[in-house]
């Protein structure tokens, strides 16, 4: 740990700059010595190393055909590196900052051969492979934030599986060992619950809570509070591990907050459209309203309790449509405090958990291609960077 921390105290950018300064200095002295001297040979350099993950970083799943999680620093707009990953894998960030975990499925011969499911562990400083933890299986879907989640301060991982029975694999990350499989019929999207295990959303409209430690895991379900087929909750919702709270958003724009625990409590919903002073949406196809949507349509800032939601106009059942506006919702106040129009529609939104947060958007079309990364100041909506050819799928940021 100490070693990693020391390495990480000098960030990649700083090293890079230091090297550049050094090279310039060499060049400078060479020029002083004799103006006509040729450029010196480059020194042999080790690969760049990184600091521990920072709140200003965003991890972008690059997509289905070019996998991997590209790391960008929202302070500089630069790509810092990439956490290697297979297609349809999921990333989690070690809260201690020492490792990145990738839950993935790899066949021994590309598209054929023997399937190997594992959690692959990378050192956060070198991004080198540290370990592979075999697991019995996992869902192949990608683009979801809650299929691979860490609990117990990063000591435990829950990996969702669908084969096509649904279950959760419990993994001890300290020992690097699969622990057990918990059947979880009809539920998905895992929220760690401190001292209990995890909760999940279910097809009967309830929230299931699973006590993991019990010899035979106990599953309890809340009363149904939403319709999984008529007005579903987006499975990329907002989750605050520290406060043990989740913010759920439905296709029509109903917002629920859930206080997690052994017996969770779920609030009455309110309409995000009503919170913005416009007409609440419904499920009738022929009506046109503002609707939430996109693949990752909600970014939740834990410090302020604001949810930033991608919204578009249209009819019902357009829940994958990219957003043309960001609505900044103060969840506790039930008030949309700002609407940020977007020049290019966005299919995913994330937020850095900084005191002055930045929004990161995967937009549908930049100047140069179909997918750019847009970095905005969350408070002002001001554009800080537009990174061409850098967009992708789900984006993750470091949480406190």
């Amino acid at each position, binding site marked *: 740990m100490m070693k990693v921390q020391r390495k990480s105290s000098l960030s990649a950018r700083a090293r890079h700059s230091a090297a550049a300064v050094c090279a310039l200095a060499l060049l400078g002295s060479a020029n002083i010595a004799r103006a006509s001297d040729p450029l010196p040979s480059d020194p042999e350099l080790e690969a760049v190393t990184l600091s521990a993950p920072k709140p200003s970083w965003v991890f972008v799943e690059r997509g289905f055909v070019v996998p991997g999680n590209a790391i960008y620093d929202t302070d500089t707009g630069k790509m810092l590196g990439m956490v290697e990953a297979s297609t349809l894998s999921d990333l989690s960030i070690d809260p201690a900052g020492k490792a990145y975990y990738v839950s993935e499925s790899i066949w021994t011969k590309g598209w054929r051969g023997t399937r190997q499911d594992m959690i692959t562990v990378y050192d956060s400083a070198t991004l080198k492979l540290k370990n592979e933890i075999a697991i019995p299986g996992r869902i192949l879907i990608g683009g979801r934030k809650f299929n691979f989640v860490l609990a117990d301060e990063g000591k435990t991982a829950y990996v969702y599986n669908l*084969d096509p029975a649904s279950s959760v694999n419990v993994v001890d990350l300290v020992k690097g060992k699969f622990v057990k499989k918990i*059947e979880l019929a009809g539920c998905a999207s895992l929220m760690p619950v401190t001292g209990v295990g995890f909760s999940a959303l279910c097809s009967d409209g309830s929230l299931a809570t699973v006590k993991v430690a019990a010899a035979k895991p106990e599953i309890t379900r809340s009363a*149904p509070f939403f319709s999984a087929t008529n007005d579903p909750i987006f499975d990329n919702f907002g989750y605050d591990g520290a406060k043990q709270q989740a913010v759920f958003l439905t296709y029509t724009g109903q917002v629920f907050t859930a206080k997690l625990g052994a017996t969770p409590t779920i609030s009455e919903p309110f309409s995000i459209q009503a919170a913005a002073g416009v007409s609440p949406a419904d499920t009738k196809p022929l009506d046109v309203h503002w609707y939430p949507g996109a693949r990752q349509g909600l970014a939740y800032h834990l410090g302020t309790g604001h949810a930033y939601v991608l919204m578009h106009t249209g009819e019902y059942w357009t829940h994958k449509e990219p957003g043309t506006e960001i609505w900044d919702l103060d969840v506790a106040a039930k008030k949309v405090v700002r609407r940020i129009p977007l020049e290019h529609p966005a299919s995913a939104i994330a937020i850095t958990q900084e005191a002055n947060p930045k929004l990161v958007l995967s937009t549908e079309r930049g100047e140069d291609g179909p997918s750019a990364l847009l970095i905005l100041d969350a408070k002002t909506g001001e554009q800080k960077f537009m990174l061409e050819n850098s967009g992708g799928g789900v984006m993750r940021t470091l949480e406190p």
Partner: protein
Amino acid sequence: MKTFNPDAMGEKLLRRFAGGTSRRGILARLGLALVAAPVFPVLPVSRASAAKPDRSPEAKTTFARNAQSKDDTKCDYWRYCAIDGSLCSCCGGAVNRCPPGAEHSPVSWVGTCINPDDGRAYLIAYRDCCGKAYCAKCNCDGTDRETQLYVPQLNNDVIWCFGTTSMEYHCSTAVLVGTA
């Protein structure tokens, strides 16, 4: 007036693709250990899921109002109201048939689409063709009545290649199962 009933849909799908084999037989084919309930986990939707929303032909979606029945290599072909991925009909297969070398998944997600010619709602099984690399042609993403991961048989992002030799996703078909 027809309403949406995932359980009935599931029963039809079972009849359609399980054929003579028992649920147990399908599970064995899928290589699954038979553990506890639910015995057939493709159908996790509880009968308790109460809401039966209006999904009649009268409540047509944007997709349904603009759908056509002539060209199954286009995203607006009526059966594709909830498809996600490459159309097998553009990849050497057909609307209901895998391209050469690909394997039809015995299970699938489903949709309810309205045929523009007769105005009826039909149950469509979006059976993935598996065991080959992504076809990447004619990519479509219909979202009529498409829901989230906790109802996987109505979610079109899941790789539905269970019980196939390889789980690599190639393309998706839209098999007509019957009236919804």
